[in-house]
């Protein structure tokens, strides 16, 4: 039998061992059935600031809704002086599973959490227009206590901003979200 041949058995055993060891860290790092809370805020930016972006004059405090206070420093760097919260979505999603979130203006945000350890999260994002055209397609890694802010121009000298945060899903029975 070929399995009894040491010449064949040794490479096969190495192959099996390596496959098991290769799969082990990922299992240990995050369970595929683990969930992650994706917290998305859609923000409308208005009152554009004319001139060179990131100029010192733009660093004055903009008008930011109280719900956006945690990202006000980031918003202050954008060439708008007013930011209002359009909608908030907070959903729990399974790691490595692709999900699509509908945004209020017809756009969609498809994402797939790649991993989530205690502090770090990897996220694939695909932000699309209502007609399916792609606005942004990226894969980012960031800390779970950080918020990824991305935005785009909209008609009427306005902007649409998405603030995305991912945190480990709480254990059953615990309250989720921010």
């Amino acid at each position, binding site marked *: 039998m*070929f399995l009894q041949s040491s010449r064949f058995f040794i490479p096969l055993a190495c192959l099996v061992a390596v496959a098991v060891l290769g799969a082990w860290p990922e299992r240990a790092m995050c369970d595929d059935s683990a969930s992650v809370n994706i917290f998305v805020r859609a923000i409308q930016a208005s009152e554009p600031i004319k001139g060179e972006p990131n100029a010192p004059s733009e660093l004055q405090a903009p008008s930011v809704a109280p719900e956006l206070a945690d990202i006000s420093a980031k918003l202050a760097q954008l060439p708008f002086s007013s930011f209002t919260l359009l909608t908030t979505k907070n959903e729990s999603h399974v790691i490595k599973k692709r999900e699509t979130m509908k945004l209020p*203006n017809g756009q969609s945000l498809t994402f797939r959490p790649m991993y989530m350890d205690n502090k770090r999260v990897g996220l694939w994002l695909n932000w699309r227009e209502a007609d399916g055209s*792609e606005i942004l397609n990226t*894969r980012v890694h*960031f800390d779970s206590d950080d918020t990824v802010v991305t*935005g785009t*121009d*909209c008609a*009427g000298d306005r902007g649409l901003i998405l603030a995305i945060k991912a945190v480990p899903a709480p254990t059953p029975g615990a309250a989720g979200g921010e």
Partner: protein
Amino acid sequence: MTKRDSFELSEGEQLLLSQYFDGECGFLARRRAEKLLQRSGAARDFLEALQEMSSECRSFAAENAPSADLWQRIESRIDSEERAAFYLGERRKDDRRESFFSRLRSQQAVWGGLSGAVVAASALFFVTSPGSKAAPVPAQPFHQAAIGGMAASPASFQNNSRSAMEVDWMRANGSLKLIQDPSGKSATIWVRRRPGSVRPVNAARATPPSMATPHLYLDGQRR
């Protein structure tokens, strides 16, 4: 002319003459061949034909003579075969149809190489895994040029990449602007689209599809 001249030689007589020509006859057979040649012209013609054929073969062999080192090469090949037989076993011909597993067994080198490749891939996995604590990914300075297409390596926004935002790749339908936040930990990703290609924030559903399609730009170039 004898009676035998009018008859062709029998098979036994041809064999006798061939052995005589080759010098393979004994005393009695040689005597019989000589008597046959004396009394039969056909036998003499047959022997003459053998001589002509032999001379032609010699001239052909002389024209196509093997190189001088032929025997040396043959001997070296025999030696290598003997050495191979010592390590791998005697060469045998297996007339049975090869099964799938026997073909696999004959491809041990492929399996060995494959397992080596998997070992290398796993080593890379250990090293580059985001959750790996043993080998942190070295931080790279952020370059705007790396964004907007398929970046070859992750772009990070802080020296300590463990706590910085990293981008594997980024693609957008407009020019991309990354605005680093005051803490230097992450950046805001802004997709710039030209006026006219953008849509109202809250009026997307009301816009007809033909009018809703924006002009697409990639890396500042119109598609």
